């Protein structure tokens, strides 16, 4: 079963690629069918509530296992990735050309994501990580604004460098663990039984490598420099995957591989991590305020919200970590909603630059209402998903550090500034004379895509307990690494 959910999209990708060379519409339909099926299977597994696992020897010489384990957290994130892929397809239905190429790439990326959420071996994880990234480069470069190639190039260079650092860190970890215990293995299950002891130079280097490798993907402040341009120039459908689903992989990696594998050095770093998260959150929000176009605002807002997750991660505390899981889902859904709106505007030949929009609500009230809903979700309105995540994170972070928790909480104010500003500039105000008069409101395909997101945001917001229970076991297991017991008061910087 586990192999099926991971490789099914990949195999389908190969089949579609080979079978539909000239038939774009067929490829499109098949891709959608595959992704829907995949998502439904994953959703069913998530509802079942069981952890799936599979362990086999792979390369015994180097202690590499073919070890897969998909728990509640991984399942939740996988379902999110699948769902977002559906949304990305629906909002790119007409705009994206060459589906015979785009479809397989999307499927391959999805395969990589599900694989890495399931990987329980560091090398296996790395393989899936690359599998996720490479199709993304092509999607970024070949679809999107005419000048998107440059930002895609930058994305690739940064990503490759980061991956390399990550690989080096993984190998160093393998060696360090071997030296410490005599067991040379990449198997995560074995590694976490005997975490690295001590705050040595080597462990610091490993941590730094992992932080850089995963942090770029999140993107953690100040490793975010590639993101605004890439998010703004890429096709919104691609960016839905990149910012909504793939960014989660970075946080997921940090969550799994830092604190549990080397608690002491990570605990020593935790106060700095919280500071980075809090400052990054505010910095992202402050930059979102000064953007002059819709996609720029969403890009920075996404950076801001992912840095809250980093704040939560390094708070390493019950409420914060549960909140983080909710935040990853909520951010994925709401940022996908916003980029979906950007995509729909692009379909209507509106690029979202303030100078070219304004007063669109009069022509498209339904689209406007959906837009407002996603804005309101993003700013953390209670009853919607993001609030559940952020409230838990901030409560947990403040319990850990009043200073950084409070600094992070200022995002409550800043988010609303850019949120209502971008909504007002695009949808409200006098009708911009440059706007054509025959814009159509949502059609049924677009309604379907947005409704999926809206319902998901409402359900998680009103009944977060469902999600909390799904992710509770893995989170509790992670929390077994008790930061309080390490280094007495290292984390207490306030």
């Amino acid at each position, binding site marked *: 079963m586990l192999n099926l959910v991971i490789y099914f999209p990949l195999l389908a990708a190969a089949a579609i690629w080979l079978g539909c060379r000239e038939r774009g519409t067929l490829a499109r339909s098949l891709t959608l069918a595959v992704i829907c099926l995949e998502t439904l299977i994953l959703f069913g597994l998530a509802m079942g509530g069981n952890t799936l696992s599979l362990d086999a020897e*792979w*390369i015994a*010489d180097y202690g*590499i296992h*073919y070890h897969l384990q998909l728990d509640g957290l991984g399942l939740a994130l996988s379902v999110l990735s699948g769902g977002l892929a559906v949304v990305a397809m629906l909002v790119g239905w007409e705009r994206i050309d060459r589906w015979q190429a785009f479809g397989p790439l999307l499927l391959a990326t999805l395969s990589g994501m599900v694989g890495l959420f399931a990987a329980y071996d560091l090398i296996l994880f790395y*393989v899936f990580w*690359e*599998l996720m990234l*490479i199709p993304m*480069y092509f999607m970024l470069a070949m679809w999107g604004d005419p000048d998107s190639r440059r930002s895609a190039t*930058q994305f*690739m*260079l940064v990503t*490759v460098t980061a991956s390399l650092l990550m690989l080096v860190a993984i190998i160093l970890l393998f060696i360090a663990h071997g030296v410490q215990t005599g067991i040379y293995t990449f198997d995560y299950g074995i590694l976490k039984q005997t975490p690295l002891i001590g705050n040595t130079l080597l462990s610091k280097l490993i941590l730094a490598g992992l932080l850089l490798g995963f942090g770029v993907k999140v993107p953690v402040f*100040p490793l975010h*420099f*590639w993101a*605004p341009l890439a998010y703004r120039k890429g096709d919104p459908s691609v960016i839905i995957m990149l910012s909504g689903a793939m960014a989660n992989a970075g946080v997921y990696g940090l969550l799994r591989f830092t604190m549990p594998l080397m608690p002491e050095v990570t605990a020593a770093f935790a106060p700095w991590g919280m500071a980075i998260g809090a400052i990054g959150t505010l*910095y992202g929000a*402050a*930059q979102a*305020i*000064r953007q002059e176009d819709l996609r720029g605002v969403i890009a920075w807002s996404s950076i801001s919200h992912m840095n809250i997750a980093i704040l939560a991660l390094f708070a390493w505390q*019950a*409420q914060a970590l*549960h909140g983080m899981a909710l935040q990853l889902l909520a951010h994925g859904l709401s940022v996908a909603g916003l980029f979906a709106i950007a995509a729909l505007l692009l379909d209507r030949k509106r690029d979202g630059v303030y100078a070219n929009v304004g*007063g669109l*609500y*009069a022509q498209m009230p339904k689209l406007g209402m959906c837009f*407002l809903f996603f804005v*309101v979700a993003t700013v*953390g*309105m*209670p009853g919607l998903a993001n*609030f*559940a995540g952020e*409230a*838990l994170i*901030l*409560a947990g972070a*403040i*319990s850990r550090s*009043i200073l950084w*928790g*409070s600094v992070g*909480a200022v995002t*409550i*104010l800043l988010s*609303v*500034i850019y949120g*209502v500003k971008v909504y*007002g500039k695009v949808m*409200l*105000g*006098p*009708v911009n004379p440059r706007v054509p008069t025959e814009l159509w409101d949502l059609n049924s395909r677009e309604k379907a895509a947005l409704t999926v997101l809206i319902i998901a945001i409402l359900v998680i917001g009103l*009944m*977060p*307990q469902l999600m*909390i229970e799904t992710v509770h076991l893995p989170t509790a297991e992670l929390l077994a690494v008790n930061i309080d017991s390490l280094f007495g008061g290292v984390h207490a910087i306030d």
Partner: protein
Amino acid sequence: MTDALVTLPMMHHLLWLIPCAPLLGALLIIALDGLPTRAYGVIANLAVLVSALCVALLWLSGSWDMPVQTAYEWMHIDNWLLDVGFRVDRFTLVMASVSAWVGLLIHLFSTQYMRHDFGERRYFAYLNLFVGGMLLFITADNLILLYAGWEIMGLCSYALVSHYYTKDENVYAGRKAFVTTRIGDTALAIGIFLCFMQFQSLNLESIFQAAPQAPTGMIAAICILFMLGAFAKSAQFPLHVWLPDAMAGPSTVSALIHAATMITAGVYLIARTHVLFDLVPDVRWWVALVGAFTALYASVSAIGQNDIKRILAYSTISQIGYMFAALGVGGYSLALFHLAVHACFKALMFMSSGVIIEIYHHDHDIRNMGGLHKQQKFLSFAYLAGSLALAALPLVTASFYSKDAIIAATYTADHGAFLAGLGLLGALLTGVYSMRMYFMVFTGKARSEIHDYKMTWAMKLPLGILALGSLCLGFIQLPDSWSFGPHLLLPWLEPVLTSVALPEGHAGEMLELLGAAAAVIGILIAWPLTKAEVRSGRGVGNIGFLNKALYIDDLAKVLVIRPFLALCAVLGSVIDGLLLNGVLVAGVRRLMLNAAEVVSRGQGALVSRYVLLMVLGLMLIIGYLTVQL
């Protein structure tokens, strides 16, 4: 009193209906597409009616001693035991009655007032959501749910203030309202998280029980944060700047914001958490100071306004200032009393002002009005009742009983003479601006064309009821020093909401007389002032310093908004522009290009080759590993 008129054991299972009926109403209005426009108004009215009836049933069944209902588990993680739960006590019940019933009257009035207006369906959806948010805030039994209601109101204020969204200034006004109040929301949120950190609980009752054992510093921090939240939401100086601009929305929205919902939420918040504030009287005193100062400041500003709705806006800021003054000296139930009275006359005046503005063809300037009394007798009498209540005419209006008690109460605090002095001066000016407004609109000759406007019962009934309330509500609670007449409200509230002993003897009598005199003198000044203004065409509204409300808003633009935006820009240019993209990215690119030139290949091919190599490498690794397998 405690004997139930009807026994309804079911009532505590229906608490959820009080906030949720309007929330569901809003959902229905959004979800049901294609109904005739009138139907949305009907749905909205029915939804609030359900809430109002539930509140009435609570009164009838006498269940005001803490019925609690837990609807479901919201988020449970370790000690974070958060439920969607509701709770009602005597204080809540009074507050919920004000919100639900005044809200219902405003809904009823809106059905005619907004007909053939603009965006009716959207209007009613938000109106319902607004009342629902307030009732959620009032009945919540934990801090997070309370915060949820508080935030929903912020959103609704945004949407309704910018209801006429085709004008940029209206959109800006809505944004300003949302953002300014969010400053307070942020403070409140941090306060709530500190509460959780300290008490490991979010439930109001358990926090109140544990509070006396908590360190004073922490309680003080929490109270200061709550106080900031309340100031922003209730438009107290200097966070009041959003309220005058919020007049951009329909007048009925102003009525709702000022009387039944949002603005009063700050007062409710502090009264609700008064157990904490009682532990730190020093912090609480600042509430009184800001309140008393705001009462005076806003009445000074109100005198200089010519826009009828802006006069009313400043009058609200001022009246809420009195309530905060009462809270700050520990007179919680006095604040609640004045809140209820204020809700009556302010809803009345705002709804009437909407009609007045329509009659004068959407001109807000009172200098262009006049002579309306002859045309609209009913409106005139209703507005007179409201204006006199605002001015607190002694004996016959309700706010004489509620406001003068507050002024007397402030006298008992530290520096009480100073606080009471601010209050008295404010009361004097209130008489002036309130009656200037009335005289300018209704007396004399018409200074511009008066359009016909026929009010139906759906408009007259709410105005009539509110006018009656503005005059008579005070009679339920005559001053303590009067041995005769009813003293119903404050003693009944005593178990949950206390007050302070008012000054007795000469000081008390003196304050009573001064308060009454201030109102009367103010009203008497207004008449010659108005006559002179009409005759000469120039008056207090021409004084720029007053008209601009002491330039506080402009000062905020220069001192806060511009530096903040500049800071964002500088940070962005330095960190992203210069350091990351300038030095790092450009440097790396130069290195790469040089390297590429060395190999003497085109730069465009670089990445493709890179990726190709990576794919190949990956395939090799996988292939190798598979072979090994």
